[in-house]
């Protein structure tokens, strides 16, 4: 497959505290969706910020279309900024409260000088149209928009540069269900119309299932399982993926709960980061970090990935 974005063994830290411990991601040229699944604090957003060069990388490499992202400077960086865009979790905070919709959406056009000033208004109208907003919103300010409208304005702004890769950080989590659906439909449509590749960060398995070919399950900054989304959700091999899977409420289906609440920062055991919560953990799990190995057509970091595990009664 033709690689667009490759993240290789990336370690990320806040000060001395490492939060992402060697993550690999692979996104081919679009249309393609890669999902990053994990709970809050798993390092999802920090990875997204690192891809966009908002967070320093301790070690590892990030490559975009053959170029070393971490070394980009000057006009190469400017090109990268055009080709990779991000949609934030919180559409409210991502829009400057002092800027009208017109100013916000036309800002990327002005920065990169790709549309002459006289045509920007028209272009912004087209972009709003594309995300299902009407042009009369142009003179509004963020506080005069609903959450769904703001999220779509953010999307329109990201699309203004016609990026090849979009990083969507929890694009729907702040929205109510009906508005979520509209945003998801929009992403589906753009993906086909624009041949868009994207990294979708979410804790919502249904969203990832719908929009992403492949997925990576992250726990406390470590990849637990990665492979095709279908495989992961239909026949999860890692106990954590299974727990996430069973945590999705489905009417009429019995489910096992996540056994223990995360103990949070600073208590990571010597072995597998998930061993503290894992109902299947053995002594080896607490002593040795399991390698990410090919099992059953996907990659799993679990000492017991090969076994058929059933929950003790």
């Amino acid at each position: 497959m033709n690689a667009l974005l490759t993240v290789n063994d990336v370690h990320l830290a806040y000060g001395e505290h490492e939060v992402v411990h060697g993550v690999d991601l692979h996104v081919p040229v679009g249309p393609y969706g890669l999902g990053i699944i994990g709970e809050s604090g798993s390092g999802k957003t920090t990875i997204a910020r690192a891809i966009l060069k908002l967070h320093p990388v301790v070690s590892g490499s990030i490559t975009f279309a053959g170029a070393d992202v971490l070394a980009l400077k000057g006009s190469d960086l400017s090109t990268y900024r055009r080709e990779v865009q991000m949609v934030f979790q919180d559409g409210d905070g991502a829009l400057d409260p002092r800027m009208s919709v017109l100013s916000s959406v036309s800002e990327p056009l002005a920065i990169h000088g790709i549309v002459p000033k006289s045509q920007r208004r028209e272009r912004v109208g087209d972009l709003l149209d594309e995300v299902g907003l009407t042009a009369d919103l142009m003179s509004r300010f963020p506080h005069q928009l609903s959450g769904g409208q703001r999220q779509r304005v953010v999307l329109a702004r990201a699309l203004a540069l016609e990026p090849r890769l979009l990083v969507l950080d929890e694009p729907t989590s702040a929205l109510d269900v009906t508005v979520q659906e509209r945003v998801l439909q929009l992403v589906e449509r753009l993906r086909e119309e624009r041949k868009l590749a994207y990294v979708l960060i979410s804790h919502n398995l249904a969203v990832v299932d719908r929009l992403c070919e492949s997925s990576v399950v992250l726990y406390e900054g470590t990849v637990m399982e990665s492979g095709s989304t279908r495989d992961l959700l239909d026949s999860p091999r890692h106990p954590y993926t299974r727990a996430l899977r069973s945590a999705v409420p489905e009417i009429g289906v019995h489910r096992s709960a996540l056994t223990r609440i995360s103990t949070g920062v600073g208590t990571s055991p010597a072995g597998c980061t998930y061993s503290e919560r894992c109902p299947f953990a053995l002594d080896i799990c607490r002593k040795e970090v399991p390698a990410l190995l090919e099992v059953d057509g996907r990659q799993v970091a679990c000492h017991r990935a090969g076994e058929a595990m059933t929950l003790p009664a």
Partner: protein
Amino acid sequence: MSGPVPDLAPLATSDASIMPGRRRSWLWPGWGAAKRVPLLVAGLVLSALIIIAGVLAPWITPYPEDAGAVVHPTQALLAPSAAHWFGTDIVGRDVFTRVVFGARVSLGIVVIVLVVSAVVGLSIGLAAGFFGGWLDAVLMRVTDIFLAFPALLLSIALAAVLSPSALHAALAIAFTWWPWYARLARGQAASIRRQGYSDAARILGASRTRQLVRHVLPNASTPVFVQMSLDAAGIILTAATLSYLGLGAQDPTPEWGLMVAKGQPLATTAWWVITFPGLAILVTAVAFNFVGDGLQSVFDPKRGRR
């Protein structure tokens, strides 16, 4: 709008109907918001009257020449009357004329102090908050040094070194006034840098200059503007204090603080010489305070403007 309307458009329209908000600018929240704060309206009207009086002073005062160095020995210390509403001072000048002209001097001092200290304070504060690191440390320590001195004493010391005049008094006040704006702007800039829209600007490829000018400056300045309106009254009082001590405007400049100082020995015999300029200081300070307090409550996010 051009192009075919996509299938999402009807939904978008229903979205819009949720919030039929009228167009409102961010800079001025509109009369609707202002009217809910009666003090702000009162302050604005009063301030406007004072400014207009100052501007039109040569045309609305009965003896405009009395604002300068003239003496009318035969009319010294006349009590208030139809000819001299506020009476006359020790050299026979019309106090009403001088009080109205005084608005020019006081407002001029306020404008100079606010402009100089806002420009200096915002530049230093925004640079410190936006760039952070060692620049932040250096700039803020310098600011702290200024703040360590009692402001009035520092102004007095500086005014004493310079030759006494209204302009030098204004500069002496500005010299001690800017650190407050620097601190305020620094805090704003540092918090704006952590907002989503700052990240968004970087991702869009905005240069540092663009981020500062287009995003940080506009968002950081509202609290500074509010603080400036609150400070106007304090500046008038400080300027009056310097003049009163003989370190500010000099006779014959019709400065209110100076008029109070000159009239003080006559307080028991010619009360009008000291009372009317004193009232002018009071009314102006109160008017500006109303505006400042009012603006603060209009812009206070807890009032739910956003």
